């Protein structure tokens, strides 16, 4: 009877401890993968701590260097993962845009793989080794990650612009309806010129927007893609200036004030 009770207690303890241990291990693993936001705020004090440790001896300096390098690479991984999550959250339509999105997402995965490889070397590295890893990672970031991050940023900006282009297209259609109606009653050359100009600006903006998408498909330099995006937005903005001019003209022509004045 006594041994039966002891077995029961043992099973109870085991049943409680195993999930708890698993939970603790999972939490520890997750925290290792994604450092806390504060952990990624690296200051000059953190860098100075290495010099302070160096004064205490080689082993203290090595430990300080390994700790900071692990932290920095962990933050780089978190940065890439956040960027990937934001990229994947962007809503895009069309096969070409979805291809770009999935390519960039895959490249961010590659970046995380690279960081993990470098992270794996830190535990066995000496002082010179940690310096080499830091130098190598810095160089790799400059040549690979920074351009990739710029491409992802461009893509997200471009994706967000698409709704504006759709709205501008609808607005042009409505404006043309109004101008056409007024033109039937009383031809107005100024309105005709403005709507024609607005239409050509919208056409140009759409064309530049398409070029920006193609440039991203061809993986052209981020600066070039960004220039096309900026150009398309500027054309769209100019078209809205024309819309605004049309709105002002129409309000002077209409007998009643159909719209509220601009605030």
């Amino acid at each position: 009877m006594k041994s039966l009770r002891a077995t029961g207690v043992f099973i109870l303890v085991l049943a409680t401890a195993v999930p708890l241990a698993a939970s603790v291990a999972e939490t520890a693993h997750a925290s290792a993968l994604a450092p806390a936001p504060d952990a990624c705020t690296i200051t000059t004090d953190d860098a100075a701590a290495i010099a302070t440790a160096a004064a205490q001896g080689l082993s203290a300096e090595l430990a300080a260097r390994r700790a900071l390098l692990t932290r920095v690479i962990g933050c780089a991984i978190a940065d890439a993962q956040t960027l990937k999550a934001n990229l994947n959250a962007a809503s895009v339509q069309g096969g070409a845009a979805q291809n770009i999105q999935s390519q960039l997402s895959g490249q961010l995965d590659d970046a995380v793989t690279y960081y993990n490889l470098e992270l794996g070397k830190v535990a066995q590295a000496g002082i010179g080794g940690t310096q080499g890893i830091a130098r190598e990672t810095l160089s790799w970031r400059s040549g690979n990650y920074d351009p990739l991050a710029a491409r992802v940023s461009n893509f997200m900006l471009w994706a967000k612009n698409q709704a504006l282009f759709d709205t501008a297209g609808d607005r042009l259609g409505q404006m043309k309806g109004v101008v056409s109606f007024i033109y039937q009653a009383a031809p107005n050359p100024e309105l005709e010129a403005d709507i024609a100009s607005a239409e050509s600006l919208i056409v140009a903006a759409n064309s530049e927007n398409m070029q920006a998408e193609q440039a991203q498909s061809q993986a052209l330099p981020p600066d070039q893609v960004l220039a096309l995006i900026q150009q398309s937005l500027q054309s769209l903005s100019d078209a809205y200036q024309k819309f605004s001019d049309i709105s002002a003209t129409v309000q002077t022509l209409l007998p009643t004030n159909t719209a509220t004045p601009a605030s």
Partner: protein
Amino acid sequence: MNLFETLKNLKNIEPDPAFKEQSKRAVLAVMPAAPAWNARRVLFRIVETGAAVALTGFFVLLITGSLSSSRLAPVQYSAIDPASLHAEAQAIDMQIHLAQLDYTTSAAESTPVTASAVKPSTRKPVVAAGVAAASSTATSTATTTLSLDEALQALSN
């Protein structure tokens, strides 16, 4: 014969068989014949049904506002509303600012890090000059945040 007997006899009254046959033939003669298959009639029915469906669809579209961009829709004067135009233009301007911000950020990233990118001194590899510089900066001035690249630069020295 009393009245009741007469009424009972009337219950059994029947028409003359010859008259019954003649009447039956006359009734059958005026009943409409089953309509014969007629191509024109079928075509008319199809057109009639099609017109009904089309009209129903048109009114459904009209009610739901799906014709707003078509010529059939009345002219939308809300299109010239300056407030909505201004809001849309502002959204574009915001994206332009974001694009400029991205450009500025990427330009800043491409410039070399100078905060702690100090050349290694002769004390290398025990204490790197970059770290020492960061230490002296930390003691002499307020603590500043380092970017990942700046931190890596400090660690590489």
